[in-house]
């Protein structure tokens, strides 16, 4: 009985838990509610994942209104994969969060943090699970609005301004998306994604369709921080509380990428936009620009969180690069990287959260000698850094390998060369940190400001869980690669 309602519960559990937090207000109690809710959510998405493995596609009719009139939750290999990523990270981060939040957010605002956290989780899961275009917009706004709050809760006053800027840009992006959806609705009279793709498939490319595509692409690109629409991201990541940064970096942009894939490949259909329109080429050029320019900017950052934020922009470039090809290998590489990057960046920001507990906002200068005072955290950062570079034995290598294969399949060996060259930039910005932590002339600084405080066990454990999975998924690729491969297959053969 309950198993047939899983798709709805996936959203309803965190959504209902959020108001409870507002009512209860006690810091620890709200935390417990959030942990409980997010773990239940995680459990549900595991069950959904297993269901999809056996059943293929799950279609759930909200309130028993049959699609395409009612809202349909449609779960297939790709969005169940994303659901699993988002909910697992949501669950683990909530477990990690308590000590970090106690230090970084005022006690009387904790319940607000948790409310926003749960709403953000709801929004992200909703965007992923729903099969209805307007529903996507609504959930997107739920997640965005709560994201603005999460960022603004940062202690530094710049967090407020960063949140405001993100609010302006994010709203413009969301409005673009809603215009695009509106145009599609005017054209087809339906909002159901599957229905839309069937109807659009028959039409030849018309002017309004082009306009809709343009609005949607730009809007979603803003949300996923595709270069050069990434301006909101660095400051937002840098000044948000560590927990929020970690959660957002690992999930929010990933969900936006899923949206882009869904619209580009399924709704419009790859044959239309890749053969008749230069969307592939545009994405390709922007991705390459992101890989090089954002990485280069990252090299010059002093603030470590901001540096890794720029690195995120660059890494998103690899994901969109894979998406610009319309081949099975390329999409697989894109989705694998979506997964691997979520783990890697999640791990990095979790570790930086531990660092922030000791030294405040981590800057390069303050991190000198960290290898001595926080050996485990530093070692974890090195491992994740290697994964960002794509050293074999880490998750990052797997995605890079598939990306290169996809590019070579196309016969574009120069592009493979560029991908590798851009990962050398990652070597530079990662190694700046490694060098500062381990090889510094004056180790005295390191000892003075952090005396003998130990890191909270729960935080360390969760952070290391992420770090070990960085290595684990560098060797055991069956889950990530097979999941991605199945997802890519769905994208390419949606309407067939």
């Amino acid at each position: 009985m309950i198993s047939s309602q899983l798709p709805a519960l996936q959203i309803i559990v965190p959504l209902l838990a959020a108001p409870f937090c507002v009512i209860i207000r006690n810091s620890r109690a709200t935390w417990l509610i959030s942990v409980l809710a997010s773990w239940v959510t995680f459990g549900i998405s595991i069950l959904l994942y297993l269901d999809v493995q056996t059943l293929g596609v799950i279609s759930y009719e909200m309130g028993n209104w049959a699609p395409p009139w009612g809202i349909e939750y449609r779960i297939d290999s790709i969005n169940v994969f994303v659901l699993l990523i988002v909910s697992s990270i949501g669950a683990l981060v909530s477990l990690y969060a308590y000590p970090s939040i106690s230090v970084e957010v005022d006690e009387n605002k904790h319940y607000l943090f948790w409310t926003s956290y749960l709403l953000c989780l709801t929004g992200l899961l909703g965007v992923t699970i729903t099969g209805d275009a307007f529903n996507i917009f609504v959930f997107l706004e739920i997640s965005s609005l709560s994201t603005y709050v999460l960022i603004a809760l940062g202690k530094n006053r710049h967090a407020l301004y960063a949140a405001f800027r993100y609010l302006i840009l994010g709203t413009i992006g969301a409005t673009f998306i809603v215009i695009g959806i509106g145009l599609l609705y005017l054209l087809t009279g339906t909002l159901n994604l599957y229905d839309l793709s069937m109807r659009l498939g028959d039409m030849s490319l018309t002017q309004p369709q082009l306009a809709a595509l343009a609005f949607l692409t730009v809007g979603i690109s803003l949300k996923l921080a595709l270069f050069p629409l990434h301006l909101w991201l660095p400051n937002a990541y840098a000044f948000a509380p560590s927990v929020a940064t970690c959660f957002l970096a690992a999930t929010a942009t990933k969900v936006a990428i899923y949206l882009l894939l869904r619209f580009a490949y399924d709704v419009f259909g790859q044959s239309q936009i890749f053969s008749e329109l230069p969307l592939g080429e545009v994405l390709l050029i922007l991705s390459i620009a992101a890989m090089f320019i954002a990485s280069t900017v990252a090299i010059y950052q002093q603030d470590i969180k901001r540096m890794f934020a720029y690195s995120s922009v660059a890494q998103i470039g690899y994901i969109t690069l894979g998406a610009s090809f319309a081949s099975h290998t390329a999409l697989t590489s894109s989705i694998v990287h979506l997964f691997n990057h979520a783990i890697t960046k999640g791990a990095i920001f979790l570790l930086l959260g531990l660092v922030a507990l000791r030294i405040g906002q981590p800057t390069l200068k303050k991190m000198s000698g960290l290898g001595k005072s926080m050996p485990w955290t530093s070692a974890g950062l090195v491992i994740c850094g290697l994964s960002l570079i794509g050293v074999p034995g880490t998750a990052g290598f797997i995605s890079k390998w598939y990306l290169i294969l996809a590019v070579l399949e196309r016969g574009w060996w120069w592009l493979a060369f560029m991908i590798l060259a851009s990962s050398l930039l990652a070597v530079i910005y990662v190694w700046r940190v490694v060098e500062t932590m381990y090889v510094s002339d004056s180790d005295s600084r390191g000892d003075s400001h952090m005396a003998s405080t130990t890191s909270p066990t729960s935080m360390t454990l969760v952070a290391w869980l992420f770090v070990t999975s960085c290595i684990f998924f560098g060797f055991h690729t069956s889950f990530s690669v097979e999941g991605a491969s199945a997802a890519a297959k769905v994208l390419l053969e949606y309407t067939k």
Partner: protein
Amino acid sequence: MDFLDNINYWIAMFQIVMGLFIVIASENLIKTLVGLGIFQSAVYIIYISPAKIFGGTAPILSENYVIYANPLPHVLILTAIVVGVATTALGLALVVRIYEAFGTLEEDKIQEIDLEDSRND
């Protein structure tokens, strides 16, 4: 008259461009929010215009009415308006906090303070 037939779309387009211009050009945070509001409300017009049928009514099953207007866009836009209100409210709340923290609402001044702070770090 083609132009007058599509007058509401022209207005919407004008509103979009005007809203975006205000967002980009104004230095004052409140004015930026105003621009955002104008921009968003253009979308409402885009959605509602095609759903309006002259002489049409809500889809009520009755023999007296033959022409129905599609209610769905109206419902959607109600949702969008709610979202818009929430955004504006949150934006204004942030503006209040920014004013408390920085003592100004001018973007260039806030950025100046930003730079100073990062230099002091």
